[in-house]
């Protein structure tokens, strides 16, 4: 018996496991204000003064609490972008630094041809009509 001659047998499967992920205190505050008031906020580090969006309870560099809430956006700037060519139609993903923030939010760009996107592009947040406390309550960003 030469085991190298065995024709491959493939067993198909799928793992489906439901989860419940808390957004956390900072993320929960962000999503609550986005849902109820359509506002975007960040949290500022009390030491280095950087504003994190998405907000963090603690600064990633200083490790001290970020307790000062600041409004950010709704306008911002594209820092990096790509196009998901496997999506149909192709989706434009971007890292957007909202005005008043020091870190960038990953989201989708609407109303712009992939060939027209540039880093540094000024964009504005677009809210979803119905909101449920989810990052997609922000529908995405449009060029100004």
């Amino acid at each position: 018996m030469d085991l190298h001659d065995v024709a491959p047998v493939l067993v198909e499967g799928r793992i489906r496991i439901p989860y419940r992920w808390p957004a956390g205190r900072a993320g929960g505050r962000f999503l609550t204000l986005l849902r109820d008031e359509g506002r975007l906020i960040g949290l500022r580090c009390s030491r280095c003064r950087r504003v994190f969006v998405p907000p963090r309870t603690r600064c990633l560099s200083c490790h001290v609490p970020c307790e000062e809430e600041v409004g950010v956006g709704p306008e911002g700037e594209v820092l990096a972008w790509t196009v998901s060519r496997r999506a149909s139609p192709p989706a434009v993903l971007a890292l957007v630094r909202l005005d008043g923030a020091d870190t960038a939010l990953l989201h989708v760009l609407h109303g712009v041809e992939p060939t027209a996107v540039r880093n540094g592009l000024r964009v504005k947040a677009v809210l979803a009509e119905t909101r449920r406390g989810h990052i997609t309550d922000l529908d995405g960003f449009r060029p100004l």
Partner: protein
Amino acid sequence: MRPVGIVGVAQTRHAERRDDVNYAELAFEVVSDLLARTGWSHDRIDTVITASSDFWDGRTISDMAVQDAAGAAGKSASKVSMDGTFALVYAAARIGSGAYRTCLVVAHGKASEGNPRLIANAAFDPIFQRPMGIDDHLALGLQARRFLDRRRLTPGVLVEAAARSAAAAATNPNAHRRQAAHVLVADPLHEDEIAPDSDGACAVLLADAETVRGEAVWLDGFAFATDVHGLGDRDLGEPGVLRQVAREAYRSAGVRDPDRELDVVEVHDASSAQTLLWREGLGLADAGGPAWNPSGGAMSAQPGFATGLVRVAEVFERLAQGEGKTGLAHGMTGFVGQAHCAWILRKRARA
């Protein structure tokens, strides 16, 4: 730390799909090859460290199956769910501490069993990033775009870097032979500018100075570090913590001028933008210097967490064959270079 030497290495031929074996058999294949090449047997191996990803293997604590293949029963086996270069840190510490004299490191990746893009998506933060449809290729696209803009480069440099990797891979008998088209996947990256998803494995056997006799290849220095996770929390267009990792690795091995002192460098470049970016991070000049990714790097094959360990095996083989004295092998874990590890290998007589 006590000196740690490399007894031998083995890697599989990397491929698109190895439907003929399950992942434990793939690990068994590379371990058997390593034992055959070195003339060693399992009873001489004190301890085993493996590198694997549960999500990639589609089962929790998937290393349990690999440990059978690695002859780990009855030994103090452990695993890291990171690239094999990080498993090597664990292994070298076991010998460097004097607690063990020999250690087998085994890493594998079998991308074909699952869906690499969906698995990558599931590794991102589920609150803010995952719902955006982000995956590893799209993160590489964001990084490449940022890199080009920061350096005022045109996408032509990505084409050239990918062509150089493909030419090197053509001479590598273990390379994953693939049909990659020049079509956009994640702007500005085309399919042929992104490292393939491969099936493959790699094994490295380490031992102390009493076991490794005469002239051999030694692990003379290393460093590793991790950066913040969020894609928007670091500048993707910069080499990030790789600069620090390179500095510390050079210092730990007494390398003062890497361009002159290194003879060969192998990096895990998940895209042709990373081929350029990691070179910058390692502090090497744009041209000249050491042989750069002579195997084709990760662009020649990317078998999951074995990818970095394959870089170690490639550098070892070149030094063992007399193609220079000192080399650097790089691995990474996490997306777009969140964590980096660098090893300095040197061929020399026993200390």
